[in-house]
């Protein structure tokens, strides 16, 4: 388990015990956060967009080219943008803080 601090689309903050070994997206989905994630983690849809807290960006790995290309066409892309299905939760991510990006 790793604690994860989440700000949802309404700006409300909450914390979950995230399961290690599955993606951030799967954890958000299991906990009913509003986010589409239509392709189920195939890096095909860009509907699982989140912002990673600055302190955590380096610790959540780097984006693949594919992921970057999808993100770059989103209107709300920021430097800290990630597709949540592309980050696998590890024990080291205990305390990960993120914001769910708006639907577009």
């Amino acid at each position, binding site marked *: 388990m790793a604690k994860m601090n989440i700000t949802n689309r309404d700006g409300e903050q909450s914390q979950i015990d995230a399961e290690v070994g*599955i993606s951030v997206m799967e954890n958000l*989905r*299991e906990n009913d956060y509003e986010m589409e994630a239509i*392709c*189920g983690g*195939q*890096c*095909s849809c860009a509907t699982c967009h989140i912002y990673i807290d600055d302190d955590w960006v380096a610790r959540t790995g780097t984006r693949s080219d594919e992921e970057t290309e999808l993100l770059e066409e989103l209107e709300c892309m920021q430097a800290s943008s990630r597709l949540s299905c592309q980050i696998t939760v590890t024990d080291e991510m205990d305390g990960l803080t993120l914001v769910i990006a708006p639907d577009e």
Partner: protein
Amino acid sequence: MDQTFVIIGAGHAGGQAAATLRTKGFEGRIVIVGDEEYLPYERPPLSKAVLSGDLEVMRTFLKRETWYDDKNVELRLQTLVTKIDTANKSLTLSDGETLAYDKLLIATGTRVRKLDLPGAELDNIFYLRAISDTLAIREQVRDGAKMVIVGGGYIGLEVAAVGAKLGCEVTVLEGLDRVMNRVVSPEVSEFYTEEHEKAGVKILTGVGVTDYEGANGKVTHVVTADGAKHEADLVVVGVGVIPNFELAEEAGIACDNGIVVDEFARTSDSDIFAAGDVTNHPNSLLDRRLRLESVQNAVDQAKTAANSMLGELKEYAEIPWFWSDQYDLKMQIVGLSEPDDDVVVRGNIADRKFSICYLRDGVFVALNAINAPKDFMVAKKLVAAKKRIDPALLADVDTPLKEM
């Protein structure tokens, strides 16, 4: 008294609708009745990562079992609804029980179209719709196994790609003159055919399958109309699906190649809603009615249906989109192309990164992005806006789509 909302079909739309009802604050009883043995799950990985062994079955579940307990959503799995009695607002289940509903959502999806050919009863002839199918196919997939795929659509080709990767000798038999005939342009068909051939897959087009031959109860050959016999240790048939609307039709609900719903997912019965592959629905962005087989449609329409069940009407109208993964090729599809559309190639096909744009009377109506996710993202917006774009501009890769 609390209301009871019943959902028929524990698939993608059914699972999504239950989740939306609860997140929207519905506190009444929710019962999902489904004939499969698994929790509601996503099907796309069944012909991709689950088949290849890269994704565990459990990770296709929309929610874990604990979610249903926590949210008080009752699951009646391995149970078929055999009758809808609209006058008494109750359902008959395969175990003989009846279940009363205040509001009902029908999300029964589709079933595979079966080929009723001589020899069809032989072992090792598979279809692919459910987890159980993927697991059964996987058991027969081994290095050197001869795999014959009947039908060169998305699912057949995805299975072919996984089969080739796992060391099978794969042959694809397609009845029409090219693979993915109904959904992509000849350029895309040709490109994918070459990619499959590079991976060692044999693709034969314009061949009709006439029968199966076997020995000791197992399939050994697939026979085609030209008399050829294709050796097979296993056969996977992917020749389309049929919507499961008979239950609704027998109950007197309006049906026409699917359950007829309006833009709010309402059927002809005011207490009954429908969502997903089974619906014939209007789309104001496309100015027509259609039936779709896609996750995007299942999810978005399920949300609309859940809202409507709660009395909140929100129109469902999205430009359809879809994806297909074969080898390292990611195809993303926006809109619905038609055979008569004008086709513009954007990029160099030989680079394995390009898009095919479809224009109808000058209007940009659809796009297939192959390893070109940027084009996919922008095309969603351009197609929705019914943009007229100069074909010469579309063909110019140095001009980003978003500037058009």
